[in-house]
C-alpha cells in the first residue's frame, strides 16, 4: 500500500504536490510528458528525494523521514541497475548482502531468482556481455530476492522494442500476482499502461491531473494536457 498524504516537494524552481493512495497488490502506471515529475514521484516514494511537507505511508508505516534502505521498496532504474565489473549472479546476490557472504540457502535463492527471470544460463556473464533486456532482468531478479512488497519501475523498458517490452511486462505482472506486490510503473508509452495497469495516473507539471482505471483515462477527451500528450 502506498499513501502520499498532501506531499509538497520543491527543488530549484520545480514544485510538485501529490495526494493519492494505491492499494496493496495493485498495478498502477504513471504517464505524462518528460519533466512532468514522474520520476520525482518515484524518487519521493523510494526516499531519494526529501519532501518539504506531508506524509508518506508505505504498508501502513510512516516512512516520511526514513532512509531509502529502511523503506519496504525496490526501485528499478532505466539503466545502470548493474555493476559492470560483477557477473550477473553477483549483481543479483547484492540484493541479499553487499558483503556477499552468503549461506548455502541464500545462494540457492539467488539461483532460484535467476532461474525465475530466465537468466540461469547467463549467471557467470558480465552485464556488458548480455542484452539490454537481460540486464533489466537482473534488476527484477534482485527485486524478487529482496522481496519487498512495493516495486517501483522507472521507465525500465524504455530502451527495449515493443515485443521485448511486452515480455518484460508479463514477467513483472506474473510476479506481482504471485507475490501480491504493489507495482508502480513509470512509462512514456500509454500502451504499457493499458497492457499492464489497472489504474493509471496522468502527471503534468508536478500534479496528478487524473488517476483512474486505465481504459477510462485513455478515453478521456476533456483534459487538454492529456490530449496534447497522447
Amino acid at each position, binding site marked *: 500500500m502506498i499513501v502520499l498524504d498532501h506531499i509538497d516537494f520543491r527543488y530549484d524552481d520545480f514544485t510538485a504536490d501529490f495526494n493519492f493512495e494505491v492499494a496493496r497488490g495493485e498495478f498502477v502506471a504513471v504517464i505524462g510528458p518528460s519533466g512532468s515529475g514522474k520520476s520525482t514521484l518515484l524518487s519521493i516514494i*523510494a*526516499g*531519494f528525494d526529501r519532501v518539504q511537507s506531508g506524509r508518506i505511508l508505505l504498508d501502513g508505516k510512516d516512512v516520511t523521514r526514513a*532512509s*531509502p*534502505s529502511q523503506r519496504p*521498496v*525496490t*526501485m528499478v*532504474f532505466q*539503466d*545502470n*541497475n548493474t*555493476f*559492470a*565489473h*560483477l557477473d550477473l549472479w553477483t549483481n543479483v546476490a*547484492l*540484493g541479499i548482502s*553487499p*558483503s556477499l557472504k552468503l549461506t548455502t540457502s541464500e545462494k540457492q535463492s539467488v539461483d532460484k531468482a535467476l532461474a525465475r527471470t530466465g537468466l540461469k544460463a547467463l549467471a557467470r556473464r558480465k552485464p556488458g556481455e548480455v542484452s539490454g533486456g537481460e540486464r533489466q532482468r537482473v534488476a527484477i531478479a534482485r527485486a524478487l530476492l*529482496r522481496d519487498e512488497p512495493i516495486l517501483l519501475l522507472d521507465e525500465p523498458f524504455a530502451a527495449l522494442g515493443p515485443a521485448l517490452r511486452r515480455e518484460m511486462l508479463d514477467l513483472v505482472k506474473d510476479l506481482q500476482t504471485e507475490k501480491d506486490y504493489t507495482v508502480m510503473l513509470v512509462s512514456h508509452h500509454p500502451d504499457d499502461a493499458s497492457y499492464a495497469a489497472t489504474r493509471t495516473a496522468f502527471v503534468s507539471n508536478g500534479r496528478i491531473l487524473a488517476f483512474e482505471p486505465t481504459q477510462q483515462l485513455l478515453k478521456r477527451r476533456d483534459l487538454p494536457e492529456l490530449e496534447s500528450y497522447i
Partner: protein
Amino acid sequence: MTAASRLTLLAASPALAAILLAVIVGLAPVAAIGIDEGLITGHIVDAYVLRILWFTLLQAGLSTLISLMLAIPVALAFARVDFWGRSLLLRLFALPLALPAIVVILGIVTVYGRTGWLSTLIGNPLNVYGLAGILLAHVFFNLPLATRLLLQQLDGIAPESWRLAAQLDFTQRARFHLIEWPQMRGSLPGIASLIFLLCAASFAVVLTLGGGPSATTLEVGIYQALRFDYDPVRATVLALLQLMLCGLFVLLAGQYAGAMQNWPSLRRTQQRYETLSAGAALGFTLIIVLAGAFVGIPLLAIILSGLFAPFTWPALFSATLTSLLIALPASALSLALAWPLAQASARAASPRWRSLLNLSALLTLIVPPAVLATGWFIAANRAGLALSAAPFLVIAMNALTALPFVLGTLAPSVQQAMAQHDRLCASLGIRGFRRLVLIDLPVLRRPLGLSAAMAFVLSLGDLTAITLFGSQNLVTLPALIYAQMGSYRIDAAAGSALILALFSMAIITLLDRGGARA
C-alpha cells in the same frame, strides 16, 4: 579517400613535413653518433650512464607511487565532502602544473629550503636537495594532478549506483569495494604512466633540486653533457635511453596527456544518499585540510616572498621582453602547425589516418625536448650557427613542445565545426579563404584563443629549451630566476618569480574564462 579529405591532407602536409623534419634533424645526428660509437655492442653504456638511468627510474617510480597513494584518499575525500570553497580548492589544484615549473620550485624552496619557513619553524635546517627534494617537488606537482584525474573518474559513477547503494544499504566498505574502487582501478595504469612520464622527463625540478652525478636524470644528464662537458657522444647515449623510456610511456599514457592542461570540471559532489559517521567525516575533512595546506602553502609563499622581494628592474625588464618575444612567435608557430593538422584529422578518411595524424603531434612527447635539442645542437654547431640560431631554436622547440596540448584543445572543436558546416558550405559554394574568414575563424574563435593562450603560457614558463640554447645574451624570465637561484639570490629570484607568476596567472585566468564559456 574522399576529395575533401585528400585536399585537407594536402594542406596539412607542410605542417607534417615541418614536424617530421624537426624530429629527423634532431634524431639523425643522435642515431648516427650512436651507431658510430658502437652503441649496438654496448661499449659506451658505462657505469655513469647506468647510474643516471637507475636514478631516473628510481625517482620517477617513487614519485609516481607516493603521488598515487596519497591522491587516492584525497580524491575519495573530495568526492564525499561538499564544503564552501571546494571548487576554489580544486582550481588551486590545477595551479602547480599550470604555473611555470621554476616558479613553483621557488615556492617549494621558500617553504622547505634550508632557510625556509618550515626550517625556521622547527629550528632545524632542512635539506631540500637530492632525492628527497626531487620527490617532494614531484609529489607537489603530481598529487594534485592525480587527485583531479581520479576525481574525474569518481564523478563518472552513474547516479543510479549511489541510489542502489542506498537501497541495498551498502556500508562504507561496500561502497568503496563495489563502486569506487572498480571505477578508479581502470584508470590507475594510465594515470601512473602519465605521472611516471612527467617525472622521467622532468627537467626543471632535477636541474634545480638535484645535485651532482648522484641525483641526475637522463634529461638533465643530456644538458650537462652538452653544455658543461661538451660530450655529444654521452649526450647521445643518454638521449637514446630517454627516447626509449619516454616512447614506451607515451604509448601507455598518451590518451591522458591532454588531461594535464585541462581545468577540473567543477561539478559539485554527487548525491550519495549517505550520512558519514562523525569519525569518518572528521577523517575526510582532515585529509582535505592537509592536502590543501600541502598544495596551498608553497603557492602562498610565491606571493608573500615575492611581495617583499627586491626587484632587479633592468635585468627583469629585458628578461620579460625576451620572454614575450619568444613566447609570441612560439605560440603563433604552434597554432600554425596545429590548424592544418586539426583540419586534416577532422576530415580524415578513416580512424587510422586520424590516429596517425594525432601521433604526429605526440611525436614531440615521445621525443623529449632534450633529445631533440641534442640533435639540433649538433646540427647547428656543424653549420656554425650555434649562437645566432639560438633564439629560433628556442622558439621552434617551444612550439613543438606545446603542440600536443594545442592540438588536443583544437582538434575536437574543429571536428565538431566541420561536421556542422561542411555540407552547408559545399552546397553554398563557400570554400578556401572565404570560408576561413566567413565561417571557420568566427566559429572557432574561442578554441583558437584557448590553444594560443595555452601555448603562450607553456612557452613563457619554459626552462628546458632556454637552458639548452640560452646564453648571457638570451635570458628569459625562467632563465633569470634559475640564475638568481643558482647564485643564492633567492630574494631577488622571488621578485622575478612573482612577475612571471602574475603574467602566467593573467593569461590562465583569461584561458579559464574562455574555457568556461566554450
